[in-house]
């Protein structure tokens, strides 16, 4: 074999292994969400858990803490969480509370909860009350950051006060002052991460697609457990040679409805012949599309107030317009709304979303946490037949 060819194939092989090893590492971190926290803690640094996409993670990074977004664990049982929250709450929140009480997240130095949905608020109240009335139960100190979303200047003022309050709480927990320069550096890093996530999400929209929806979901999830600089480094490696990744195939579907804190449902859908080219929940595209305008408390307040529109907090009209635009931008051929049991917001959104998107659309509602009923899977898979040869 001529020497030149050998050199070329060696380079190709190395590029492939770089992109795919970055993907493998990200996927592993999505599955073992506390692995990075263990290393961080071993270096004597604080780890702070958070619930919901409305928590300004920049403040956690600026405080020198590792922000770890808490996810539930479908199939692991939620008996403890059910006891305190009742059966009427979104099972994802019941699962998170169960894992917190079971010590699955290790020794957290604090817990910041946003009011991104009613279930998160209820989770916070339960933690606060359990710490008060059942001190034998081991739970970290908890803080509620009340980010609101009506498009009013008065709301911004309020959210800004909540950002300042969270900053003060973090300073108490970590025993160190958050300097403006720390905040600026953290904002810059998290914005860079958002930009990279946007670029990576594009890879599943190209033809041929270079990533599945399942892979993108795992990548996003990994970046909510890793130190931000480590996430940036892995995403840069992944994004440098996308053409070395295997092609992904399937009927191009835009996913709306409930959020997904694990890849189970995506994997089931993609096994059934769909390709999730985009979504509008905050474990996916909705998490990273908006940047911070300036690295200040006000800049953070505006970013988190206006980020969205999420199903539990946005109006039907704003949500329908967003879903239709995003589905178009993703060049989706169909719309699928997956709604988990006890997640009521999306049910009210669906009629307007279907009308605005003007695509073949299916709603599967009252689904179990982390899975689909056989009937729901069949009706989602039915979209591939409706689409016929389009893909």
């Amino acid at each position, binding site marked *: 074999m001529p020497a030149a060819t050998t050199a070329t194939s060696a380079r190709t092989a190395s590029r492939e292994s770089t992109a795919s090893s970055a993907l493998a590492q990200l996927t592993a971190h999505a599955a073992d969400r506390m692995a990075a926290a263990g290393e961080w803690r071993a270096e004597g640094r604080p780890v702070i858990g958070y619930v919901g996409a409305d928590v300004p993670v920049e403040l956690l990074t600026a405080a020198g803490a590792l922000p770890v977004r808490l996810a539930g664990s479908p199939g692991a049982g939620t008996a403890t969480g059910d006891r305190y929250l009742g059966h009427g709450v979104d099972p994802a929140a019941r699962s998170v509370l169960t894992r917190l009480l079971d010590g699955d997240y290790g020794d957290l130095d604090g817990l910041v909860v946003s009011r991104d949905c009613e279930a998160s608020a209820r989770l916070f109240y339960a933690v606060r009350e359990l710490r008060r009335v059942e001190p034998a139960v081991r739970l970290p100190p908890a803080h509620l950051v009340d980010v*609101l979303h009506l498009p009013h200047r008065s709301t911004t003022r309020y959210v800004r006060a909540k950002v300042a309050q969270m900053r003060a709480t973090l300073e108490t927990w970590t025993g160190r002052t958050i300097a403006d320069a720390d905040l600026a550096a953290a904002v810059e890093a998290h914005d860079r991460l958002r930009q990279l996530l946007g670029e990576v999400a594009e890879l599943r929209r190209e033809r041929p697609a270079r990533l599945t929806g399942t892979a993108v979901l795992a990548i996003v999830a990994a970046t909510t457990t890793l130190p931000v600089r480590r996430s940036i480094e892995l995403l840069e490696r992944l994004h440098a040679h996308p053409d070395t990744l295997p092609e992904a195939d399937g009927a191009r579907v835009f996913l709306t409805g409930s959020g997904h804190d694990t890849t189970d449902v995506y994997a089931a859908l993609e096994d059934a012949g769909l390709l999730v080219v985009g979504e509008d929940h905050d474990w996916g595209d909705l998490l990273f599309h908006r940047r911070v305008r300036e690295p200040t408390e006000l800049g953070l307040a505006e970013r988190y107030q206006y980020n969205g529109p999420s199903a539990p907090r946005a109006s039907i009209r704003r949500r329908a317009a967003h879903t239709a635009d995003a589905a178009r931008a993703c060049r989706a051929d169909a719309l699928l709304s997956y709604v988990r049991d006890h997640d009521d917001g999306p049910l009210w959104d669906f009629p307007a979303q279907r009308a605005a998107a003007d695509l073949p659309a299916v709603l599967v509602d009252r689904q179990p946490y982390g899975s689909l009923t056989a009937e729901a899977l069949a009706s989602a898979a039915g979209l591939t037949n409706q689409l016929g040869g389009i893909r």
Partner: protein
Amino acid sequence: MSDRLSSAEAALAYQRQWFADLHGAVADGAPFALVNADTPHEILRTMGIPYVVNQWWASIVTAKGRTQDYLGLLRERGYPDHSEQYSSIALGSLFDPDPGSAPWGGLPRPSLVLAETTGDASRKVFDVWDEEPGTTFYPLESAARDDVPPRWWELMPRRWEEAVGSDRLDLMVEELVGLIRFLEATTGREFLETRFREVMALANEQQEWNRRTRDLIARARPCPLSVTDSIPGVMVPQWHRGTTWARDAARAFHDEVAARVAEGTGVCPDERYRLMWVGRGLWFDLDFYRRFQRTHGAVFVWSMYLAIAADGYLRYGGDPLRALAARFAAFSDQLYTPPWSAEWYVKEARHHGVDGVVHLVSDDARGGYFTTRALRAAGIPVLELRADNVDARSADKDALTRTVGDWLDNEVAPRT
């Protein structure tokens, strides 16, 4: 003597007449608002804009047996019929093909719907209203606090700034300013500060009467009235608060209860157990509350409607708009957020000397664990009943009755 309170009957008669007159006013072009219970009604009152409370209408529809019809109309339009039923029944009634057949001649079409952005779905019900030509939804923020004031019921009348929190009040005042400007611009009605002060003063007077009534009932043995009388006796005037009629109705209700207490009149001839009802009214089965008087000598002496009127509404001093913001900003905390709610239910249970609590736990996000826990920790037997308060599909009446009867026999009776 009829054991129905004449003040409760008078309130219901007034409400009927008022509602009939409302149809005329709306037909003549008056603005009309449909509002959630936890919104600043006093602003509409001040501006002379008539309003109906969404949850009151749902309770009427349910008591008249029309709930399933209206939920069905929502379902036909692709909306869920198993989510936020209490908030969405009025919306369903909008789609009634035969509005004349609706209870009380039907709900007029509102020009304004007003609600806080609580929960994940309840604001969406109002978004659907907003799609109707001629109807505007004005959403109000619903803020929450990280920390909790102990014994809020002692702070609320005068130290509400402390109880609710300044950030939250700053935000709510801005929301009210925006609402007033919106109403001035769209209805042409005046917001007179002098009138507003009168409205606020009348509302406080009314709640002072409710407070006296609550305290009378707490001390009275035997219990002088049934819950099914106390609910209309308090709530009809509550929906008219800020008027002299409502203030006087609250006083008349008080005086009648006081007279019964003085005579030693009881609603249950053989009163043995005093019970507390925690949760929203069981509108699809109002007879439920009296069933256990006949079988067990058990009388419900408490429901949240009178008690929250007594403890949750009084706001004195300060700028009246800020006082109003403080009245509605923490409503759901007072009733549904631990420890605000849990400690209050315990305080009320002790105040009324109850022998047991029936706690209605619906299949929604509010949950009930901490309330039940707090009551049990105070040594009070609690029965958790699982049902939706307006959707009878969620529970079988006979099963509910049996459950309560068994609990009275097995848990309450042995302890008293």
